[in-house]
C-alpha cells in the first residue's frame, strides 16, 4: 500500500536526518555574536540567506536548491570560524553547488552571471576555490535530508489518506513558509522532521480539518516526536509566519543595492534638472507705487487684488476665430 511505503520512507529519512544537522554549538555561537564583532552574527547570516532566496527566485531555481544551499551554509558556518568578509563568497558558493546538484545543467547559471547579479566583489576563481573548500569540509553526499524532504513526505501521506476530501494541503504555500522560516537562523537548530511537522500542523489548524489532524498525530506517533518539542517549535514557527504574512513591509537593513545605469541615461539624469531663472510674478500683484489700475478700473468696480483679468480682457478665453494680428507698418 502506498501509505505504508511512505511511512517506511519517512522512518528511513528520520533516521538519517541527524547526519545533516549543523552543529548546535556552532549555531549558538553565531546567535550570540555581536553585529560588528569578529565572527558572523545571526543578523548577518539571516540577511545573506535572504539574498540567497532572492537569487534563487531570480534564476528560477527550485525550492529544493534553496533549502540545500541553506543547509550547506549553516553546516559550514557551524563548523568553521569565518570572517564576515567571506560570507558572501561562501553563501554564493553553497547556492552554486546546490544548483549543480539539483538543477538541470542547462538551467544552472554561470558563476560569472551569479557574481554579476549579486553584485559581489570576488572573482570567478575565488568562487571556485571556495566551492572546493566547502565540498571538502562538508564531505558532500547527494540529497541530504532536509525539512523539505519531510514536508514532501508529509504532504504525500496526507494526500494518500484524503483523496475524497476537497481540502488539500497547498504544498506551494508550505514551501514558501518553510523558506520564510529558513531565513531565521533559529530554525536551523530544529530537527528537520520537527520543523516540517510544525509547519504542517500550523496549516492543518488553519484549515480546521479533523481528519488531517489525525494524520498529523499519527505521523508524530510514528516518529516518536515529543509533544514538548513540537509545541516549542510550533510557537516559534507561528511567530515567524505572522511576521511573514503581515502587511507591514520590512526594510532591508543591509547594504543598498547598486544601481548601475548606462552613460547616456546617467547624463540624462544629471542634466534634467531645470531651475527657474525668471523671478516669480505673483498673480494680481499689487505694487503700491503703481496706481494706474486703481484709477482706471474704479468704474468697473472690480477688486483689483483678486482679479487677473485686466480691463483688456476680451470675452471668451478660447475665441472661435483667431483675432487679426496687427501688422507693423514700418516707415523709415
Amino acid at each position, binding site marked *: 500500500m502506498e501509505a505504508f511505503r511512505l511511512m517506511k520512507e519517512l522512518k528511513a529519512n528520520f533516521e538519517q536526518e541527524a547526519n545533516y544537522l549543523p552543529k548546535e554549538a556552532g549555531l549558538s555561537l553565531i546567535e550570540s555574536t555581536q553585529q560588528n564583532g569578529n565572527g558572523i552574527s545571526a543578523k548577518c547570516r539571516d540577511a545573506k540567506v535572504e539574498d540567497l532566496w532572492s537569487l534563487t527566485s531570480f534564476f528560477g531555481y527550485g525550492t529544493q536548491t534553496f533549502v540545500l544551499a541553506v543547509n550547506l551554509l549553516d553546516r559550514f558556518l557551524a563548523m568553521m570560524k569565518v570572517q564576515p568578509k567571506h560570507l558572501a563568497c561562501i553563501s554564493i558558493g553553497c547556492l552554486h553547488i546546490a544548483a549543480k546538484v539539483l538543477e538541470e545543467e542547462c538551467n544552472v547559471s554561470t558563476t560569472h552571471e551569479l557574481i554579476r547579479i549579486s553584485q559581489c566583489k570576488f572573482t570567478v576563481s575565488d568562487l571556485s576555490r571556495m566551492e572546493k573548500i566547502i565540498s571538502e569540509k562538508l564531505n558532500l553526499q547527494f540529497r541530504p535530508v532536509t525539512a523539505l524532504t519531510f514536508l514532501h513526505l508529509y504532504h504525500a501521506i496526507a494526500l494518500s489518506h484524503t483523496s475524497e476530501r476537497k481540502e488539500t494541503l497547498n504544498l506551494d504555500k508550505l514551501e514558501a513558509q518553510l523558506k520564510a522560516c529558513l531565513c531565521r537562523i533559529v530554525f536551523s537548530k530544529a530537527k528537520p522532521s520537527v520543523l516540517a511537522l510544525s509547519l504542517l500542523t500550523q496549516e492543518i489548524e488553519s484549515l480546521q480539518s479533523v481528519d488531517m489532524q489525525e494524520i498529523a498525530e499519527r505521523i508524530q506517533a510514528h516518529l516518536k516526536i515529543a509533544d514538548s518539542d513540537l509545541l516549542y517549535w510550533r510557537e516559534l514557527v507561528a511567530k515567524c509566519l505572522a511576521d511573514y504574512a503581515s502587511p507591514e513591509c520590512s526594510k532591508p537593513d543591509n547594504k543598498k543595492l547598486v544601481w548601475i545605469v548606462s552613460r547616456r541615461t546617467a547624463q540624462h539624469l544629471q542634466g534634467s534638472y531645470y531651475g527657474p531663472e525668471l523671478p516669480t510674478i505673483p498673480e494680481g500683484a499689487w505694487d503700491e507705487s503703481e496706481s*494706474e489700475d486703481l484709477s482706471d478700473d474704479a468704474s468697473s468696480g472690480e477688486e483689483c487684488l483678486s482679479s487677473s483679468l485686466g480691463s483688456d480682457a476680451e470675452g471668451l478665453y478660447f475665441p472661435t476665430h483667431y483675432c487679426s494680428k496687427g501688422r507693423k507698418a514700418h516707415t523709415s
Partner: protein
Amino acid sequence: CSLSLPPVAMSSAATTTPSVDKVDGFSRKSVRKAKQKRSQSSSQFRSQGKPIELTPLPLLKDVPAPEQAELFLRKLQQCCTVFDFMDTLSDLKMKEYKRSTLNELVDYVTVSRGYLTEQAYPEVVKMVSYNIFRTLPPSDSNEFDPEEDEPTLEASWPHLQLVYEFFIRFLESQEFQPSIAKKYIDQKFVLQLLELFDSEDPRERDYLKTVLHRIYGKFLGLRAFIRKQINNIFLRFVYETEHFNGVAELLEILGSIINGFALPLKAEHKQFLVKVLIPLHTVRSLSLFHAQLAYCIVQFLEKDPALTEPVIRGLLKFWPKTCSQKEVMFLGELEEILDVIEPTQFVKIQEPLFKQISRCVSSPHFQVAERALYYWNNEYIMSLIEENSSVILPIMFASLYRISKEHWNPAIVALVYNVLKAFMEMNSTLFDELTATYKSDRQREKKKEKEREELWKKLEDLELKRGLRNDGIIPT
C-alpha cells in the same frame, strides 16, 4: 531625428555641373552651408545708394543737466535710423556712431535720475519699435531642423542687442511709470513683440523673454491679453504649423507666472493646462522645450494637487509609441511629477500608470527600460509603491520576471534583479504567490505547447500512413 538633406540637384544634359562641385552626389553648397553660419537678412526697404548721414551729437555727460533731457530725446530719434548689416561695407562710420550712442543710452538709463520725462516715453517706444519690429525672413524652411542645424543669426545684432539692453533697463528703471508707459506699450506693441519670438537667433529670444517678463509683471492691464496670445501661439504651433522657435522662452515666462498663481486656481488656468500644455507634449520637437514644459506642469501640480489625475491621464494618453527619445523624456517628466505627488492622488492613478511603466520596462530599447527601472531607486516613489504593493506588484510582476529571462541587455537584467529584490522584501507573501502562479501558468503553457506539437505530429503520421496506403505516393 535625422538631418534632412536637400534634394539632389538634377542636372540636365546641357548644363553639367563640374564633378568637383559634387560630394557623394550632393551639391557642394549644402555641405558648405552646414559649416558656415549665415546671417539672417531683414526685409527692410531702404533707399538704395543714399548713404546715411547723422550729425554727431555731444555726449550726455558733457552737457549741463537741464539740457540733458532734450539731448536724450534727440539721440533717441537718431537711433531710429536703421542700418543695413547685410551689406558689410556700407555706412561703417555711422554704424559705429549709432552703436556708441546706443551704448551711451544704456548707461545713461541705468544710472541717471530725473531724465525720464513724459515726452521720453513715446520716443523710447518708437526707437525700440523701429529697430526690433521687422518681418522675420522665412527660415531655410524645410531644411532647418532646430535640433540639428546651426541657427541663422541676426545680422544687425551689434545694434539690436543694445536696443534690447536699453529697453530692459528702461523698463526696470526706478523712474519708470507704467501708468504713462501704457499709452505706448499697448496690445499692438505686445503682439509685435510676440511675433519676434519666432526669431531663429537664440540671443534675441533670450532678450525678448526678459522684456516680455518685465512687461507682464508691470502692466496688469495687459496680462490677460498676453496670456491669450501665448495661448493662440501654442495652439497654432500644436495643431497647425508645428513650427515656432520661441516655445521654450514663452514656457519659461509661463513658469514664473504659474509659480505666482493665487489659490484657488482660476478655471481659465486649469483649462490652459489641459487644453494647451498637455497637447504640447505631442509635438515632434519636444526635446527643445521639454525641460521648461515639465517645470510648468510640476508647478501646476504643486499649486493644485487635484490636477494630478487629469495630467497623468493626459500624459498616458499621449504616450509616445514610436519615438524612444520622447519616451525617455516622458519618463523623466513622470518621475518629476511623482516626486511631488500626494499619496491620495497616487492611489487614483496607480493602475494605469504602472501598466504603462510595465510596458516601458519591457521595452527592447534599453534606454527606455533602464529609465523606467531607475524609478525604483527613488526613495519617495519606493515608499509609495510599498504602501500599495498589493496593487502594483501584480501589474509589474509578469513583465519583470519575463525580462529577467529574456532581455538582451545584461545591464537591464541586473537592474531587474534590484527591482525584484525590492519587491520581495516589500511583500514576501504576495511575491511568493505570484511566483507560484507565474510558474504554474508557464508550465501549463508549456504543456499546451507540447500537446499541440504532438497533435501536429500525429496528424503528420496519419497523413503519411494514409498516403502510403492508397497508392504508395506520399502526398505533397
